Every structure is written in C-alpha cells, then in structure tokens.
C-alpha cells in the first residue's frame, strides 16, 4: 500500500484499454459478419497493408505523420481535461492559428530573417493565436461564468467564419496551381520544417514536427507531474473546492490552463503546413474533435495518448486496405466510434474495481474483517 507501484492498483488500468480494444474489435467483427463480410479477411488486410505488404513503408509514414497532428491535438485537450476543463475548441484554435501563422510565414514580414528564426516565428505566432482564441473562452468563464463547453463551441463556428473571410483571393488566399481550389499562399522554402529521410520503398518522408510533438509530450508530463503548477492543476481537477481551500487561485488556474491548452492547440495544423502541404486548405478542420477522442483513449497520459494517436491513424489508413477487399471503408469510422465508447466505459469499470480493491486493502489494514462493499447498482 505504501509502494508507488502497487500492482493491484496499476493492473486494472493497463488491462482495461487492452480488453476494451479487443472488445471493440469483437463488436466490429459482429458488425462485419452481420453485413456478410469476413472479419478475419478485413483485419488481415489492415495488418498486411501497414506492416507486411508492399505498401507498408508508405502506410507507416502516413500513420506517423497523421498521428503527429492527433497527438498534439490530444495533448491540448488533455491539459484541459486534467483540470476538469473541456476545451472543445481545439478545432477553431488550430484552424485560426494555422491560417494566420501560415499567412505570416508566406508574407514579406518575416522574409528578412534567417530560416530557423522564420520557422520559430511561425511556430510562436501559431501558439499565441491559439492561446488568445482559447483565452477568450477562459475570460468569459472566469469573469462572466459562461461554460467553456458552450463558448468554445461557439468560438469554433466564429473561427470557421473568419477562416472563410481570410481564405479568399482578396486577402490571404491564392488559387492553387492547376485547379480552382483556394489555399493560403505557399510557404517559402525557408519556412519549411526539415523532415527525416524517407524509408526504403516510399518517397514520403516522416515530418520533422514529430520530434516537436514528442518533446511536447515530455513537457506535458514534466509540467503536470513535476511542477507546482501541474500539482495545482491536477488538484483543481480532482477537487476544485479543496484546491481553492489550500490556496490555489482558481481564476488564474483556469485562464492559464486554457491559454496553455490553446497554445498547444495552435500547433496542431503545423505538421501539415510546415512539413507536408506548405499551404492551408479551406477544408482544414476536424483534428480538434479527433483530439478529444484520442485523449480519452490515451487516458490523458502522454504515453497512452501516443499509442492512441497511432491506433487512430492506423485505423484511418486502413480504409484503403478495406476498400481493396470490397468492404465498405466506412466501417473504420464505426470501429473508431465503438472503440472510444467501449474504452471510456472500460476505464470507468476499471476505476470502480480498483476503488473496491483499495477499500478492501484499507479494511484489512485497519483490522476490519470485512470492508463495506462499494455500491454497485444498475449495471
């Protein structure tokens, strides 16, 4: 009980996600069978495409690149989650950040700087924009009592409109070569983030932003686990009134957490912008909501989120494998939805089981023969 790594405490939280993913795979198998498809063919094709077949290097590269954006988005969401704040607005924050930072990067304002400084400027501007946009929701919550769930959703819509306003040929947009698509102005080579060399068998490169995402994951772990701010943040999330009673400034915590979350959110669009596409498309969006799902799957833990982001990207990429097997690729979205729902239920059950175990341990330690069983109803 005194040991930090009590196996009985840790075990349910490790088994839960694995069991949940297996259960989700089982449910998806049933869905596939009920529509007359063979699940083993489907799962086999998905595995082969990513790890064995000819397409494997390209698929793996895509998986890692996609998961980079998912990871950043999920970290942004998780920072809020740990304090009991729901930043549903990551989507709006990163879209606005990408357009404005991309516009700046392509403009003459930064052209005089040496290359690395340009890259740094774009990154910082993106973080500042994301932070400010999230800050609006924080200020509304702190000073006017507006729920951040609603204000961030509203701000998502507003940022979509600003995006539509900015991405026109009169302002930040240009017509993409060879089409009618409107994009932001392409970034000059100086602001391209260096990428890794490509794997054998594909010309796609793993984006350099992966390293920044990994560093950010470490910073997240350090901030929450090893600093006073992180302790205050987690304390506020676990029991807000107890935290206030022990001297935490609740308003300041809300604003800082939300701004940091928004700052990280500002980075979400950059792996594509600076490492891959070099432009912002008008269709940008959606990663914020994926981030919520990935943060839930990864249980707000930096390593867990990494696995979750990779799993999500793997499922995303698998749609091509299913298409080749004549299985509707829409199955993937079902798999993702089922996985999230089953996983969150599994976590809740695991938490309940480990709570009951702890009660039993406490009961034994205090000499009572029988601990009071935790209430289980309705299940």
């Amino acid at each position, binding site marked *: 009980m005194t040991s930090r790594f009590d196996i009985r405490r840790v075990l349910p939280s490790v088994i839960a996600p694995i069991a949940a993913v297996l259960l989700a795979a089982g449910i998806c198998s049933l869905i596939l069978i009920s529509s007359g498809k063979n699940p083993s063919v489907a799962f086999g094709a998905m595995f082969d495409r990513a790890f064995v077949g000819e397409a494997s290097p390209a698929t793996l590269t895509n998986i890692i690149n996609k998961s980079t954006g998912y990871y950043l988005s999920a970290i942004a969401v998780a920072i809020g989650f740990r304090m009991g704040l729901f930043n549903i607005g990551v989507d709006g924050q990163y879209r606005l950040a990408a357009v404005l930072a991309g516009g700046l990067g392509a403009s003459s304002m930064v052209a005089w700087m040496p290359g690395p400084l340009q890259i740094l400027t774009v990154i910082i501007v993106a973080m500042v924009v994301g932070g400010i946009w999230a800050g609006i929701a924080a200020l509304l919550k702190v000073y006017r009592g507006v729920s951040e769930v609603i204000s961030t959703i509203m701000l998502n819509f507003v940022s979509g*409109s600003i995006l539509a306003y900015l991405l026109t040929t009169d302002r930040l947009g240009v017509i993409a070569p060879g089409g009618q698509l409107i994009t932001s102005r392409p970034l000059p080579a100086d602001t391209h983030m260096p990428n890794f060399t490509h794997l054998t068998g594909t010309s796609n490169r793993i984006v350099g932003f992966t390293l920044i995402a990994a560093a950010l994951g470490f910073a997240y772990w350090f901030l929450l686990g090893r600093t006073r701010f992180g302790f205050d943040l987690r304390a506020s999330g676990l029991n807000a009134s107890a935290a206030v009673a022990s001297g935490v400034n609740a308003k300041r915590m809300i604003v800082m957490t939300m701004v940091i979350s928004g700052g990280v959110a500002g980075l979400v669009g950059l792996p594509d912008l600076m490492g891959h596409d070099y432009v912002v498309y008008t269709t940008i969006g959606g990663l914020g909501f994926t981030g919520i799902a990935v943060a839930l799957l990864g249980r707000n833990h930096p390593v867990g989120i990494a696995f979750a982001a990779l799993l999500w990207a793997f499922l995303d990429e698998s749609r091509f494998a299913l298409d080749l097997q004549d299985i509707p690729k829409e199955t993937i979205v079902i798999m993702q939805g089922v996985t999230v729902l089953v996983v969150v239920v599994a976590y809740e059950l695991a938490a309940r089981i480990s709570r009951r175990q702890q009660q039993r341990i406490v009961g034994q330690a205090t000499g009572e023969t029988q601990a009071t069983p935790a209430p289980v109803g309705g299940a």
Partner: protein
Amino acid sequence: MSGESTVVAPPAQRASVASLVSGRRARLAWTLIAVAAGLLVFSAVRVITGAQDLTSAGAFGAMLTAAVPIGLAGLGGLWSERSGVVNIGLEGMMILGTWGGAWGAITFGVWGGVIVGALAGAVGGLLHALATVTFNVDHIVSGVAITILGTGAARYLSSFTFAKMPGGGVTQSPYLAQLPRFSLPGVDHLDGLERRHWFLISDLGGIVRGLLTNVSALTVIAILLVPATYYVLWRTPFGLRLRSCGENPRAAESLGVNVYLYKYLGVVISGGLAGLGGAFLSMVGSSIYREGQTAGRGYIGLATMIFGNWRPGGLAAGAALFGYTDALQLRGGSDSVHGLLLFITIALAAIAVYQLVRGNRAVGIASLVIAALAAIWFGTTRQLPIPFVQAMPYVVTLVVLALASQRLRMPAADGQPYRKGGD
C-alpha cells in the same frame, strides 16, 4: 429565480400562490412589451435602412425552417439536462436522425421517415444513457463518443442502403417524398399589404404571412412540442419526478422515485427529439439526406437551451434567433444583416441604459462600448461580408451569455454522477 422553478423549495422561500400568479402575469406582460418594442424598432430599422427583406414573408418562412431543427435539438437537450444528464451527443443523435428520416421515408413512406428518424435518435440516446447512467461515464466524454459513433454509423448504414439506390450514394440519398404542407386560408392576401412597405403594418403582414403559409406538418408538430414539453415537465407528476432527478436525485430517491428509470427516459426522449430534428433536416429542410447535413446544429441546440435558461419558452426564442440570422444569410442578405447591425446597436444601447440605471456599471459600459463599435461599423460600411453574416448568431449567443449568464440557473445536479444508495 422564482420559487416555482425549484423543485423542493424550503418553506421560507415558498411564495404564496397569489404572488406566484401575479409574478407570472408580470413576466408575461414584460415579455409582450419587449416583443412589441422589438417589433417597433425592427420596422423602424427596415424603413431607415431600406432592407425590405428584414421582415419579408420569405425571410420569416425560411426562419421557421431553419429554427425547427435547432429548436428540436434544444428541446432534446432540455429533456436530458432536466433529468440531470448533460447531452453533448445531441449532434450525433441528430446525424442518426437525418439518416433514419431519409431511409424511413424511402422504405415506409413519409410518416415512416418521421418515426424512424426519431427512433434512430432515441437509440443514440439509449447508448448515452447506458454509458452515463449505468456505467457512470463522464457525460461530456460519452457525448463526444456518441457523436463520433453517430457520424460513423450514418455513413456505414448509407453504404448499405442509399449507395445501392438509383440517384443515391454513400454521402447522399435519393430525393425524398414531401410531407404535407398547410397554409392558413386567406393569409395570402397579406402579400399586397407587405408590398406597400408601410411602417409596422407591412412588417406585421410579412411576418404573419411568412409564419402561416406553406408550413410543413412536421413544423407544426415541432412547434406543438414546445408547449407539450412545458406541460409534461412542469405540470404533471411525471415531469416533477423527472426534474427532481436533475435537481436533487438523492431527495428524489428518498421519495421513492426510480432515478435510473427517469434518467433513462429523459435521455432516450432527448435522443428521440434530436433525431426528429435530424429527420426534419433531411425530409423537410432539403428533401435529401446529405452527409454533414447537421453542420453542428446539435451544438447550437444546446446553446439555445442554455440561452433559454433551461426552459422551453426561452429555448424557442433562442432557436428563432438562430433561425432568423440563418435565414437572412441563406437569402444572400448582406444588406439585411447590415440593417440588423443597426438593430443590434439600438438593442445594446437599451441594455446599456438598463444596466447603468440598475447600477451595473461594468456591464453597462461594456455594452455601451460594443454598441458604439457596432454603430461605427454600421456607419462606415454598406454591406457585410457573408462570412461575418454567418458568424453573427454565434457572436450574438456569446454576447448574450456574457451579459446574462449570471442569471442563468442550470439544474442543480446537472452533469453530476449518481449512484443509487451511494453517499
């Protein structure tokens, strides 16, 4: 808050029946005065700016179509949150409803579509109830998962159904048959009145004609659901029990209410209403199912519910506001919305005066500053870019929430986990 909205009012707060009735009458009178004043300012703005579309029959007809799905989603949110479950999965349930409405309409006829749409949403609600009530999953978390699942399910189901129909595909259904539409006989003659552009009279003519001609049967049902919800939730023992689960489930439990059952009912009905809103979108709004058709209306419904202080009347007003700006924008009304800017200026100035008189200096000055900015904006431009027109309802909601959120009161136990017999 008056005593009537708290379920178990302590004796000290319990108002006498007489004062309660007079309080309600006073509120009704104030509402009517506010509506009348708003109408006056509105027609004045129309005359000044010459933006005739502000009160045209077309704009108000379109408003009704745009407001109904939002209002249904909001009603869904109301049923769920009154039973104590936050439902951010409304969007997903609505998506299920759009698919269900279209598929049902093709398979069983138009009324079949209405029923299947509501049932599809209710299935989403059942899942949400299972996760939140039985498994105690965080309500927001479950809602997000339901929305992801709803998106996937609609797409998956379409790949089996619409994809194999002529004129259909994975992302859209074939054209759907129409529900019957009604017009109040005689109202069409108001058209002549509207074209005179008289102050106030033509405005009233346009509004009445817009609201009473060519109205879909489902619109009528949706509008009737607002008073029906009020009656069931606030005037029946069933409603009292359901609301008590949202206010104080332990107290409800001690009085013998089966809290789990009522929460389940609240959330399933919530899903059904959201599904109905989705079915309206595919069957009446555009007579075709299209992927991504809901475009966040589930979330907007949630906003209207908060805007309306967790009450059906305020919710309907919020839905009308969203529907109206939506309608102006759909009708390409950058002129009209420019006129609306003047209306907002006047309204904000009125709020500022009211707040300053009441001694609320900070809010009053803030409103005054925003009003001045809006006035400058109105004076220096002739049209608004369409994206700003689109953003208008969301900004208005944010402003309203910022100004009024201190007076909003959500159900006391909304979003909190509940275990039977727990401590």
